[in-house]
């Protein structure tokens, strides 16, 4: 059986429906940062409110996963659920942004960015360990070519090429998932 972290969203949903506890843990792990990011970045909820939304989202996901018609669509389904609960939280708090239209301003753009980030994260997770490691070191940890070379036992002069090759693989994975990328996305 494939490692649970590498199975598709649809496969994960099927296993959750079958009562697999490990699958539930993975579902929460896979989407927890996404849910919190929607609450905090798109709706600007406080950490405490975002945590409450987080708990509600996964409690309702647990109760209502059977209602999901297309298992591949679990991510937008969770996003929609999160949006609704964020709006409820804002209304309940009687904040000055209780106007739904105001609270929703800019949310679509932020959500698009979060979706893109999650797609990249998922594609990265499905890559080989050496590629994942080298991209993480360069783009996330801001390590120099010399530092990466020293850590991985590779000549510094080969690191730029290796990163480009891994980015090419990442691009191919994202294109498989989402269709051709725009130049900006490249």
């Amino acid at each position, binding site marked *: 059986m494939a490692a649970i972290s590498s199975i598709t969203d649809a496969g994960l949903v099927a296993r959750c429906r079958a009562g697999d506890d490990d699958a539930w843990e993975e579902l929460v792990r896979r989407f927890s940062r996404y849910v919190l990011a929607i609450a905090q970045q798109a709706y600007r909820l406080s950490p405490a409110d975002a945590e409450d939304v987080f708990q509600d989202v996964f409690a309702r996901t647990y109760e209502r996963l059977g209602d999901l018609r297309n298992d591949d669509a679990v991510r937008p389904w969770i996003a929609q659920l999160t949006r609704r609960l964020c709006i409820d939280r804002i209304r309940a708090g009687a904040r000055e942004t209780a106007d739904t239209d105001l609270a929703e301003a800019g949310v679509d753009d932020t959500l698009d960015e979060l979706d893109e980030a999650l797609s990249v994260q998922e594609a990265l997770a499905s890559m080989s360990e050496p590629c994942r490691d080298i991209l993480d070191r*360069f*783009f996330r940890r*801001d390590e*120099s*070519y*010399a530092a990466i070379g020293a850590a991985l036992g590779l000549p*510094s*002069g080969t*690191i*730029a*090429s290796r*990163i*480009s*090759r*891994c*980015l*090419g693989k990442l*691009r191919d994975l994202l294109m498989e998932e989402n269709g051709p990328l725009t130049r900006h996305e*490249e």
Partner: protein
Amino acid sequence: MRSEERSPAAGSAGTAAAALAAALVTKTARRSRQVWPEAGGAIAQAAALEARLWKAGDELEASYRRAVEALESGDQTAIAELVPAAAEASLELARIAADVSELAVDAAHHCDQAHHADATVAAVLAAAAARTGAHLVAVNLLSRPDDARSSEARLLVERSHQAAEMLAGER
């Protein structure tokens, strides 16, 4: 840059040189997509390095201002803390510039050869920036020439200089 103010000065000039080098690598890669399938990877790396450069440049100027203020105040504790910090910021410029020079080598070896000269000039500019960073490390560590940062800076200059010389010798 040409103002009478103390800052921005040498550190920003070095940063700008390295950023220009990264931009030239980007142009080289953009104009080579037909022959270089991984050109997009070089473009992404150049963008990441350029972003790091501007951040490092800001830190370099800020650390320089703090170091000069400490030196002017004569506060030995502040001098001992802030002058080496300026050296560290200068070393970061040298590190990033050396990476730009290596990326330029990668670009020169894979690009449409009509743009080899652009990649070569990128390496030359990056080497100049690495040397700028290393020189500022030396200035800030005048009393400690055997400091590990001085040794690292010398290696970075050597690496970037070799990259530029190699590319210049290819045409």
